[in-house]
């Protein structure tokens, strides 16, 4: 079993590295007259060495590490499905590695949400004690943030950006593989936190709480810093790939909107992710080295953390939602059989969000006790960001207007992104305006709002993308009836759950609580039942995906008659993507324009060229 060997050798060298780290700490501490083992310090150093060991063992040594010592590198050639379990340079393998991993993480984190809703069905404590509830709540938060940041970017982005720009791979294939193989240790560490005390500070990890809490916080900090590295390196890779590896003729004005959204997202990831990493590194140093950055008694300031943290974590919501917009606009154009309306304005909107996204962070801190003079500027910037966001809506609505809408599952999910984000956007105004925010901040109104934007905007986009590209990735077709069932089930239960959830927030139910006043019992019972229905909808999805991947009917070459490059090659694409490099002639969305083609393959007469066009 090749796959087993690869993962086992990674785990083996990882363990060796971990104990090497512990040993080094023990030696240094022993020589300086301390106890040989200190939980936090030892875990930190053990982790760093263990992570390197894991990467090397899982295949990075042969593909990359040997080169540092002048040795010949090699790639492990694993047959069939086993290639997904080793360090692979192929962006299509890496894309599926990301996608499947994060679907699994999504389902686990969703299970956490189900447990929380079970606890919240009644006032008082039933399923959990306070400690367990906080642990599950924090875990749900950070896992879902990871899914939202990486599932679309790492999964669909990796798979389809090179295909859509006519490149044979990403610019840095080994770096790409590295970003994926950092994920399993992150997931394993986060999933182990409930058994080591649990992260009681939520995914935001505000000090002083995160400095004084138990040492599972160290695991949390190390995991998130590692995950940040994935995000930064991935962003860098996308930026270089999109700038330098576009096919001849693929000018910026002809770039598919999904690629544009990935470009903007990658800039966000590259520019801002270090904020979160630095914030957590400072917490870690407060804990293991007594730096007292955040301890007011010794000259630190607890509010400093929130600025550094939100400096990333607000742009992060655009890292989450812009790829969702990209997919939505992509499928909306193809399934409306019309050019993407106001394409240039939509691109301008994405760039505008990139520009403004970095200067709105303190709207998360309106009630934090920051100086009063800061509220006005952040209120203004936050309201202003609705203008570029509005351009995305213009493109979507302009495209479906008078279109020939083909209501297959990808289109339904794409339209749902627009529907849900309209609701999430309007409720955002209540939170951007300080006079209403000072009551609503940290209530279930906020919980409902960000689930509308992130789940409604991005996760619906993720499903649009999965259904849209399923035949491309697997060569098989999913079951349309089950997919439509999944859509309507998820769409209705999602909207019922989260629309109703605004109300307890207004009534005075704050977020992140294991218990609440009895007067809110009925509405919470209702929300819980609806949330269970929402959770159950994913059973249909998983069944459909697994069954169709193995047994589904072989898909047509271009089932959606789409014009973009990835649909003009076999499904799934060959390892080198294009036998002949494509030559881009026209706009990707020129539906209804006679004679227009997007791309041709000059060297290969047998391949369909351009395609689509509604014939």
């Amino acid at each position: 079993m090749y796959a087993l060997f690869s993962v086992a050798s990674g785990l083996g060298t990882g363990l060796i590295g971990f104990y090497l780290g512990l040993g080094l700490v023990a030696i240094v501490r022993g020589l300086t007259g301390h106890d040989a083992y200190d939980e936090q310090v030892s875990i930190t150093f053990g982790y760093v060495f263990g992570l390197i060991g894991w990467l090397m063992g899982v295949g990075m040594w042969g593909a990359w590490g040997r080169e540092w010592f002048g040795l010949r590198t090699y790639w492990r050639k694993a047959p069939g499905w086993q290639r997904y379990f080793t360090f692979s340079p192929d962006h299509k393998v890496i894309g599926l590695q990301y996608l499947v991993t994060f679907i699994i993480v999504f389902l686990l984190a969703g299970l956490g949400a189900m447990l929380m809703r079970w606890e919240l069905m009644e006032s008082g404590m039933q399923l959990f004690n306070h400690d367990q509830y906080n642990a599950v709540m924090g875990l749900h938060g950070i896992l879902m943030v990871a899914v939202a940041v990486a599932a679309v970017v790492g999964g669909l982005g990796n798979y389809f950006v090179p295909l859509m720009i006519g490149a044979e791979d990403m610019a840095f294939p080994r770096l790409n593989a590295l970003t994926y193989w950092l994920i399993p240790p992150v997931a394993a560490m986060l999933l182990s936190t409930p058994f080591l005390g649990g992260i009681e500070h939520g995914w935001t990890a505000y000090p002083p709480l995160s400095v004084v809490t138990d040492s599972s916080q160290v695991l949390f900090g190390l995991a998130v810093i590692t995950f940040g590295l994935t995000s930064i390196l991935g962003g860098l890779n996308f930026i270089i790939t999109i700038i330098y590896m576009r096919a001849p003729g693929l000018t910026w004005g002809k770039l598919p909107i999904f690629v544009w959204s990935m470009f903007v997202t990658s800039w966000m990831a590259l520019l801002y992710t270090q904020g979160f990493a630095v914030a957590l590194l400072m917490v870690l140093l407060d804990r293991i080295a007594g730096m007292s950055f955040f301890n007011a008694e010794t000259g630190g300031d607890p509010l400093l953390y929130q600025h550094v943290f939100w400096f990333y974590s607000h742009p992060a919501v655009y890292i989450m939602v812009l790829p969702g917009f990209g997919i939505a606009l992509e499928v909306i154009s193809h399934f409306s059989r019309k050019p993407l309306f106001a394409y240039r304005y939509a691109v301008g909107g994405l760039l505008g969000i990139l520009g403004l996204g970095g200067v709105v962070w303190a709207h998360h801190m309106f009630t934090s006790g920051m100086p009063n003079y800061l509220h006005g500027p952040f209120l203004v910037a936050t309201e202003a960001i609705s203008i570029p966001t509005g351009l995305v809506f213009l493109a979507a609505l302009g495209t479906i207007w008078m279109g020939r809408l083909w209501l297959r599952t990808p289109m339904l999910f794409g339209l749902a992104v627009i529907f849900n984000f309209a609701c999430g956007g309007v409720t955002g105004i209540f939170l951007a305006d300080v006079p209403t925010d000072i009551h609503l901040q940290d209530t279930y109104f906020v919980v409902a709002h960000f689930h509308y934007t992130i789940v409604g905007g991005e996760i619906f986009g993720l499903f649009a993308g999965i259904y849209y590209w399923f035949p491309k990735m697997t060569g098989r077709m999913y079951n349309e009836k089950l997919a439509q069932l999944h859509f309507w089930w998820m769409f209705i239960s999602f909207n019922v759950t989260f629309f109703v959830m605004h109300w307890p927030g207004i009534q005075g139910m704050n977020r992140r609580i294991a218990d609440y006043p009895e007067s809110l019992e009925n509405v919470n019972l209702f929300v819980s039942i609806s949330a269970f229905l929402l959770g159950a909808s994913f059973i249909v999805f998983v069944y459909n995906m697994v069954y169709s991947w193995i047994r589904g009917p072989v898909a047509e070459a271009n089932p959606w008659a789409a014009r973009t490059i990835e649909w003009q090659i076999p499904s799934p694409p060959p390892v080198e993507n294009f036998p002949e490099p494509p030559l881009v002639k026209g706009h990707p969305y020129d539906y209804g324009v006679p004679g227009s083609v997007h791309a041709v393959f000059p060297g290969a007469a047998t391949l369909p060229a351009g395609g689509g066009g509604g014939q």
Partner: protein
Amino acid sequence: MRRHVIAAVAVWVVLTAIGETLALADLYPTVGSSEAEDFDRIFRILIVMGMPVFTFVIAVLFYCVIRFGSFGKPSEDGPAYRGAGLGPRVWLAVTGSLALTVMIFPGLTGLAELQPDKSGYGWGESNAELVVRVVGFRWSWTMEYADAGVTVSTAQGKELVLPVDTHVKFEIESTDVIHSFWIPAFRMKIDALPGRTTHMTVKTTALGRFEDDDAYRVQCAELCGLDHSTMTFPVRVVPRAEFEQWLQSQKPAATAQ
């Protein structure tokens, strides 16, 4: 085309009319302060302003799906509008002025009322008839009526008692981690930080007590660990005379008798 525009606008108008009834609904907890009246009013104004934007998107979506959608593969392409003309500019002008409006009213105007003092850390006037010093700690509160020398806590007094029709200023601190001082009936919160004193001033307008209405409670609204959810404290708003009596009864000398 014209027929479609008229029909879609009709859908929009109908949806907006239905949606705007939400502004009439009583979605709010008990009103206990003049700030709460402001909040409810501004919240309703934002519903009135935001609803047409929301229903515009929904109306176009519904209209297009029902009128232009089909489950079978379309036999032809749609018209090749690219949207390069006047449309996007009008859209930008409209969304831009909407954003500007909300920014100024109720955003900045409301903010100016909340922050007469630009250099402090908190809401409302810095002068008040009654000052209560609040200290948050894991997982409860103490409230000190500084002038009277009275402190209430879970051991002593057991409730935050306030006189009605009075400007009350809370000066808030924390001894350990970050908490947030929030009374839903007053619609206002501010974090309790170690090493920094924040404040909020409210004007109480109605009698009420926790036993009858849980909007009259202090609730910690910033995650502070284990018992965060139960870090509450009962609030009672009483007539001024009764407040004075209560305050006398809480004085150390009085309790010693």
